[in-house]
């Protein structure tokens, strides 16, 4: 045992250091809470009761593996919660918060944890969380859940969907007004109900402006294949197509890359890309020029904030599917590229937007509806 004295010495030294550091931490904490920035959700949850009082309302979201800084819908959803918190004088950890998932095994764990921390409303961001939301919602009928971009079953679940076909229609109008060759293209991610919605809306928009314009539709069969996107774009541009609308996630980066390559070789060439989901203005920047004509922007933040407001006022749309569209400003066209979007185009977009909101135009959301729509023109 004698030999071990050295080890015991090292051991106890480590423990002492640990204690000292711990003590430092404790005093640090005092300063923190005096400033009021130290988020302590436990206090918060202890106060919360089920009387639906505004002061006790709390909301949280679970991201998918993208995380809150994914520059896409997770980030947008979090911005929605932050805006909600600001309006109601809450801060992160006191009234609203998020839980990030490192892998898809974490979805149910995170949802469960937030339920246990007594959040009144919990968002699942992205269709990947659908099975987890349904499972946890069935286990905890007293908590409200909402899922973005997917329909989930359950009496305490609200499903948030977007009318992407309306925004795509306006993108089609912009493309039809911009094209000089009377040929435009559409690059889709995976051929399925969701992306067909984009396709139908876009084509309807183009044909509404000028029925003679041809729309070339191609699918990359992947949301993460920029090389395929580049190939398709190269093919389209060489056929004389001058505006491409992509609804293909990261595959669309290839479309941007091809357009920028062409623009670099010949700055006078007219090639345009229409972005999707968020304003992709930055993606299209090449030197002085920018190939991004506009983007079909999906405001997840507005939808999240809206549903949260409803829940706080005791009007949570439980068991319902809510579709957000142009009239909520949850779908819109970006106007960052002022040079490319002439007044003429903007007026046309505004005109058609009016018609859609008034109900004069029913935008098709499937290929069958598109056919009837085009024939009726």
């Amino acid at each position, binding site marked *: 045992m004698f030999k071990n004295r050295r080890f015991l010495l090292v051991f106890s030294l480590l423990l002492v250091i640990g204690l000292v550091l711990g003590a430092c931490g404790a005093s640090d904490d005092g300063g923190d809470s005096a400033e009021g920035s130290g988020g302590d959700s436990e206090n918060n949850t202890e106060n919360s009761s089920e009387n639906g009082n505004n002061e006790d309302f709390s909301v949280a979201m679970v991201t998918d593996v993208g995380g809150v800084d994914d520059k896409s819908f997770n980030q947008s959803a979090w911005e929605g919660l932050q805006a909600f918190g600001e309006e109601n004088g809450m801060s992160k950890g006191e009234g609203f918060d998020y839980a990030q998932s490192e892998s898809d095994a974490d979805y149910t*764990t995170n949802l469960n944890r937030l339920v246990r921390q007594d959040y009144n409303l919990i968002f699942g961001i992205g269709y990947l969380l659908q099975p987890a939301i349904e499972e946890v919602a069935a286990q905890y009928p007293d908590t409200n859940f909402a899922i973005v971009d997917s329909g989930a079953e359950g009496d305490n679940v609200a499903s948030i969907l977007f009318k992407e076909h309306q925004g795509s229609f306006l993108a089609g109008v912009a493309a039809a007004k911009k094209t000089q060759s009377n040929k435009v293209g559409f690059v889709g991610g995976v051929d399925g109900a969701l992306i067909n919605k984009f396709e139908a809306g876009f084509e309807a928009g183009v044909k509404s402006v000028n029925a003679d314009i041809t729309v070339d539709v191609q699918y990359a069969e992947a949301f993460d294949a920029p090389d395929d996107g580049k190939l398709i774009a190269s093919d389209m541009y060489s056929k004389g197509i001058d505006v491409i609308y992509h609804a293909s996630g990261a595959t669309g980066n290839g479309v941007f890359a091809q357009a920028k390559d062409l623009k670099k070789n010949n700055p006078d060439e007219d090639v345009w890309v229409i972005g999707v989901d968020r304003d992709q203005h930055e993606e299209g920047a090449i030197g002085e020029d920018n190939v991004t004509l506009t983007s079909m922007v999906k405001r997840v933040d507005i939808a999240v904030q809206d549903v949260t407001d409803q829940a706080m006022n005791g009007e949570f749309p439980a068991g319902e599917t809510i579709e957000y569209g142009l009239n909520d400003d949850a779908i819109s066209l970006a106007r960052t590229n002022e040079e490319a979007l002439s007044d003429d185009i903007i007026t046309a977009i505004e005109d058609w937007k009016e018609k859609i909101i008034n109900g004069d135009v029913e935008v098709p959301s499937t290929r069958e509806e598109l056919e009837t729509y085009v024939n009726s023109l």
Partner: protein
Amino acid sequence: MFANRTVNILIPIISVLLGLLSGAVIMLVFGYNPLKGYAALWTGAFGDAYFLGETLRQVTPYILSGLAVAFALRTGLLNIGVEGQVFVGWVASVWVGVAFELPMIIHLPLAVLAAALAGAFWGFIPGILKAKLGVHEVIVTIMMNYIALYLSNEIVRNVITDGKDRTDSIAPTASLASEWLAGMTYFSRLHWGLLIALFMALVMWFLLNKTTQGFELRSVGFNQHASNYAGMSVSKNIVLAMVISGAFAGLAGAMEGLGTFGYMSVKSGFTNIGFDGIAVALLGANTALGVVLAAFLFGTLKIGALNMPTVAGVPTELVEIVIALIIIFVASSYMIRWIILRFKKEGK
């Protein structure tokens, strides 16, 4: 002998303490309260029955992937391919779970066995290449990981289902999930797989320490030439070690497929169960008991860490750094061993 053993036990403990300590320093530097952070970690892992259940659920595959790495290492082989073997095991177990209608007493063992066999096969390929052609197992196993990832995506998408992103849920007769365990832990996903994992740890200990075959495997790990000279077949032992290691890894996949999820989905990247297994094996000093203990630590860290951002406000990234620091200190155990021995010499 006694002092040596103390050193072996002390190294992992000191590594973990150093890791937690430097984690605390980093939290302090960035203005977070480490005590609060670690308290959140603790309640996040053991706070109530639900989290305890989830922690044990996470520990289960870690034990098996840790055993897989440790077993190969005892024979002197670095099996980086545990991740891929987990994937094929997962797919195989779910496939059997979805495809057949059998009574539970046949169905469940069959699904578990399928996973072990798939993993074993995935370990056999690098094993035979190493034994017959001398191809380094690290390179082959790394590449096999990618083959496994994309192959299982393809199988999920086009063979088991018709172009869907995830398979149907497995038949209840093939499921390890237990309503009793879930009910006891407020719907956690704790399942019977934990017993399988612990039993496998026992199997590994028995195999390595109590059988002739185990002696040969360890002997090859110590010195191939001496073993050869002593009349043992080195290549046979290399293949066997990789096969058994792969079978452990395949079982880890079955834990996910038959226990935690009950289905397999198309994955965009690795699950890290296999890669974390390397750290688990290192921390556990490649022994069965050590691996079980290390797996508990890693499971605790993983599940508890999820609680740190929401309760203590520590950002997820910092939590990752703390975990990485512990792994670094474990991996640099050589340094700690050297320092301890240095101390000892001076003491004499």
